[in-house]
């Protein structure tokens, strides 16, 4: 037997078309997806698919048929939400909204890139801005503002600490903080495990 036999023998056969994800779509009122005739208008319209392995139709079909590995697939983060597929779908499926919902489900299961997680957990939650201008690192941007006769910080959450608190309170209330904490814990656990494995290997 050849050494690389794993490479050739996959034994990957879908056993079921029951899908937890599909059920979540239905619960979110997105059961329209079931009207899909797999025409590929979404994939054909997708500017991202022309340069990445992201295939709109295939992603949704995997979600619909129970291939849950789609949640771990980084491809689903390559949709730039340009809504072209949404506009052209002949079955009136809100395709882009489905992708966003799919990402929600992925995040719920802890599948989120570190960069995205940091943006949510550190930047947005802490400052109320997605792209902030406060802090030492951003001094040049404040200076730039001033050079055009604008105050160094805009009249947003940046100059209203109470508004930051208010946003945080809302994020706690709606369960975002818990979600972030859950993911953080999971991420730390994964990191520790990875390090442990590394040491064991050594």
């Amino acid at each position, binding site marked *: 037997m050849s050494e690389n036999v794993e490479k050739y023998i996959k034994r990957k056969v879908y056993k079921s078309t029951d899908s937890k994800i599909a059920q979540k779509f239905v619960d979110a009122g997105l059961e329209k997806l079931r*009207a899909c*005739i*797999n*025409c*590929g*208008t*979404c*994939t*054909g*319209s*997708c500017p991202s*698919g*022309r340069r990445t392995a992201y*295939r709109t*139709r*295939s992603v949704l079909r995997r979600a619909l048929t129970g291939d849950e590995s789609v949640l771990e697939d980084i491809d689903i983060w390559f949709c730039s939400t340009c809504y*072209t597929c949404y506009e*052209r*779908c*002949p*079955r*009136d499926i809100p395709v882009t909204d489905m992708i966003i919902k799919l990402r929600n489900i992925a995040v719920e299961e802890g599948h989120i890139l570190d960069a995205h997680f940091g943006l949510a957990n550190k930047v947005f939650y802490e400052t109320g801005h997605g792209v902030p201008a406060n802090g030492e690192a951003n001094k040049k941007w404040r200076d730039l503002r001033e050079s055009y006769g604008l105050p160094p910080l805009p009249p947003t959450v940046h100059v209203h600490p109470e508004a930051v608190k208010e946003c945080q309170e809302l994020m706690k209330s709606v369960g975002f903080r818990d979600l972030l904490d859950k993911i953080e814990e999971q991420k730390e656990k994964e990191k520790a495990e990875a390090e442990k494995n590394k040491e064991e290997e050594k």
Partner: protein
Amino acid sequence: MTETDKKIEITGNEKPKIGVYVCHCGVNIGGVVSVPDLVENAKTLPDVTVGREYKFFCSDVGQKMIKEDIEAGLVNRVVVAACSPRMHEPTFRIACQEAGLNQFLFEMANIREHSTWVHMKEPEGAYEVAKDHIRLAIAKARNLAPLAVQKVSVEPVSLVIGAGITGMNAAIDLTKAGYKVYLVDRSATIGGHMAQLDKTFPTMDCSSCILTPKMSEISRNKDIELLTYSEVTEVTGYVGNFEVTIKKKPHYIDQVKCNGCGICVDACPITVANEFDLGLSTRKAIYVPFPQAIPSQYTIDMDSCVECGICARETVCEPLAINYDDEPEYIQVKVGTIIVATGYDEYDPTELKQYGYGKYPNVITGLQMERLLSSFGPVVGKPVKPSDLEAPHSIAFLQCVGSRNFREGGNKYCSRVCCMYATKQARQYKEKHPEADIYIFYMDIRAFGKGYEEFYESAARDYGINYVRGRIAEVRENPLNHNIIIRSEDTLLQQPIEVEVELFVLSTGIEPRADSDSITNLLRIQKSADGFFLEAHPKLRPVDTLTEGIFIAGVSQGPKDIPDSVAQAKGAAASAIGLMAKGEVEIEPFFAVIHPDRCSGCGMCIQNCAYGAIEYVDDRRFGEIASVNVALCKGCGACSGNCRSSAIDIIGFSSEQLNSMITKRE
């Protein structure tokens, strides 16, 4: 034993003995609610003497059970709880009649369409609804009275609206059975869409070759009065006796004087797009639709004509047939039956901007491609790119344009002809240009007709046509050569693809006529959700409408190909012939009656009656009161609903009957 032998006399005075028959309808009813419980419950209600259940009461065995009870004198009113009365009321009425019971002593409780099918997921609720519907039917049955059917004569003349392949076939069949036909078409020629087609799938016989002989047969047929360039403007009356007004639009040319020399056409200075060629060629303001048109009559299109007067000159029109002041003419005819065969419109793909139709010259529709392929079309059967009039080296077809589309402006249904016509057009082009690359972008190929699958199979195998599974997402034009660059997904490869072709054909679907509302309003017929005319029953009465005496055929009823259209034409003709052959037809004796002692003569009912069926009479005892002309009355009840002294009642839906249903006893 004849019917009269065993007629059971009911005068309305004897105590009602109601038989209740609850149908399981297989599992349709019995699988949701407990039929035995429904029967037991019905039996507890007053006057119910018999309660039975059976799997299918509409079957012979089921009907026999009812008949036996009637004949044994156990029941004198029959209630069947089953499907919709629109389905089987006639069946059970006949059964009652055969057993000697007056057919109007029958009532139906709809516990399938209105209960077990719509409350499948709530069986308890379905049971309650079914129980109540049976109770309501029993209440009405208790108050039923025997009625005598009305018979009216049927005029042995038929009106066929639309003279495409469907209307023409229906008309010919009607005359073969000996009936006179008025064949009306609003365009200046007969032939319809089929006249625009080149060859027909899957046999590849030429459309004109099979159509033109039919057209001349029509023009020769003395029993067909051909009314082209005409429209039906009013229809009154009822089955067997329709009064029809037809408007003959002015041709602005005296058809008697005109000798058809055609000099006027050459002389006419106005050139407009030719609708017969879908804008791919031009015609003059004075024109004949196409060379083989029947009747071969000239017409001035007044929307484009500037009345310059050139064609009216004696040097141009020697017989002086031009008449700019021509007026429409209205004729009135009486017919017994009407067949509607008004056909379809092609879907307009302009709104699908991503396909560039109307923007890029080399994007055309399927029907335009048909004209390009036609031997008497604008390019005599040698298709070219509109941009440079050169034969294309590559063509892509896109299927389901406007069809199977849930978006606003799209059609949800399958147009049923596009898969085959695209395949046919691709094959036709490939026959002459074997080197050309042909792509058909499809979602599903529907090759369901006789010989269709074989036709499709051969297209790929023998002709090398490339079928790509995927709906084109967008196209753009190559600015250098007007080629069309297509973006799509090849869904079987799961890959985005880009293809450049020289001609892009949109296999546009079929739509109901944009103005089909005018027909439904005129004839009081219904449309189904897709906008096509609604048949009385999707399977068993496919060419009947809910209005007796009016039939539908061809694409006006739903997308279909030529064989199916012709089959329907023959079906509709046979149905119309059946009515006319009998010479008389039974109509339900449901009409208004006036209690003269209560009528105050206010005249409100006269105003509300849409049929002019009520008039004042001078009654010796009651003075000036309203009186119903039963021949005109349709029994709608608009008069009764407004009568402030409750002097009018509607037989079949009497106040007593309705009140007994409303009365809630719990």
